[in-house]
């Protein structure tokens, strides 16, 4: 009986960070490295800082989108080591944008992040538009909101 609440919690969580992930560390890393710009609840600011909340998960429906999330400079150039950065991005996706994620959600690994962060994106605005326009065509069922010009 004692184990029941924990089991329920796990069931409710549905998708979880990969083994060994430390949710509290990810949250604190978000506070220290990201929320100054993206704001505590991932809202961003109109037309200046993209909204993570209920949005960022869409990118994982595209291979280039998956790479893009690590290539953006705020992620690629963060001072965090690869393993903590992978943990943080996984936490960001699950915490802010779970409904938009593909099922099953495949978390980033430290190795994947290490490789991708070597190439910071030099023109994020254009690439973002390209990826989202492509997804709007190839995956209309996602009903991604229109991308602001």
């Amino acid at each position, binding site marked *: 009986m004692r184990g029941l609440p924990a089991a329920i919690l796990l069931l409710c969580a549905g998708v979880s960070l990969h083994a060994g992930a430390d949710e509290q560390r990810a949250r604190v890393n978000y506070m220290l490295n990201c929320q100054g710009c993206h704001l505590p609840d991932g809202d961003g600011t109109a037309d*200046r800082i993209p909204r993570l909340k209920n949005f960022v998960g869409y990118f994982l429906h595209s291979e280039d989108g998956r790479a893009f999330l690590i290539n*953006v*400079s*705020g992620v*690629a*150039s963060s001072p965090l080591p690869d393993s903590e950065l992978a943990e943080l991005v996984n936490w960001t996706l699950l915490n802010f944008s779970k409904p938009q994620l593909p099922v099953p959600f495949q978390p980033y690994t430290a190795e994947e992040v290490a490789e991708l962060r070597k190439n*910071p994106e*030099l023109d994020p605005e254009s690439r973002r538009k390209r990826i989202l326009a492509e997804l709007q065509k190839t995956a209309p069922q996602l009903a991604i909101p229109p991308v602001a010009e």
Partner: protein
Amino acid sequence: MKIPGFACKSLPLAVALVLANSAAAQFEPDPLGLTRELPAVYPQSWIIAQDASFFHPNDGKFIVLDAADDSQHGRYKGMFNGSFVAQLAIAESRPEMYVVETFHSRGHRGERTDVLTFYDKRSLAPVGEVVLPPKRALTLPIKFSLQLVDEERLGLVFNLTPATSVSVVELERREFLGEVPIPGCAMIFPTGQRGFSSLCADGAMLTVHLDAQGAVLSTERSETFFDAQADAVFEKPAMHGRMAHFPTFLGNLISVDLSGDSPVIASPWALANGVEGGWRPGGVQPAEADSAGQVYMLMHPGGAEGTHKDPGSEVWVFDPEARQLSARIALRLPAISIELTRGESPLLVATNINLNLDVYDAGSGNHLRTLADFGQETPLVLHGAR
């Protein structure tokens, strides 16, 4: 006589009246409506003190001063404005100065407009403007937020929204050309003929070359050469031509040659090598170079985590080629910013902690005079006039 002695007392008055009358006869009133002009190229001893008006930044000022003049009225040459922590660049090839500034339609609020304002060096009058995307970085004044490249044909403005980019302005036609993204990187260090470099969060340098229309010709990322966590570089190098000497928080110097297409980054060396006391660089404008290429650095003892903005009690003079400390100047008062005047016998001008300007002979280190009462409040950054 009701008042004894009146006649006697009135005598000096009578004399004075007579004298005044004859003075009036000779008095030539000053002609009114005369406007004096400043020279198109400012003398070597002039500086421009940038008063950011820290406590009410809408009202920033640039004050033109002759640092070599001992008289208060003689050294004050004029003043022009810069709204909302403006940035200044001074041309050499034409009698112009550029101020990038910000206005809001209702003063402190309302729609934001960023402009590059063109000032005539002779009249200190605004003679033109180019409206920019309202994105410029609103930071304390820093010279590397506004730079001129391509023999002063292009003006580059650093933007931070917080996505970072650079706005490009054609200065002869007074036209906005476009915007270059520099994600994760900051500041503008002129590079080669028509390019610039920026410092990136991951410790690399991003170098962008432009064509005459301001479009990107090439982009290149250097190897990482500093670690922002372990020993960050100041984003305020001492510039000598295209040589950028970057001090680091822990007190190293990294010289980067930006004269070619790609930055050539030299190995770091310790500024206070062999000197006791934990000396480190610090301040608002901590490092400058003179015309001969000597590097001057505001230094404070007992450096520790977080002291990189502390005032310096000494200015150290380095020969960056020999990697040697060549002189130490003990300041009359600790200072937050320094500048050197041009020429062979430069003056060292320092904004001291009372926010007055101390002028030293840069060669001997002797304190010569203090410039106070020129209408300043917070002269945070000093620009050697050209």
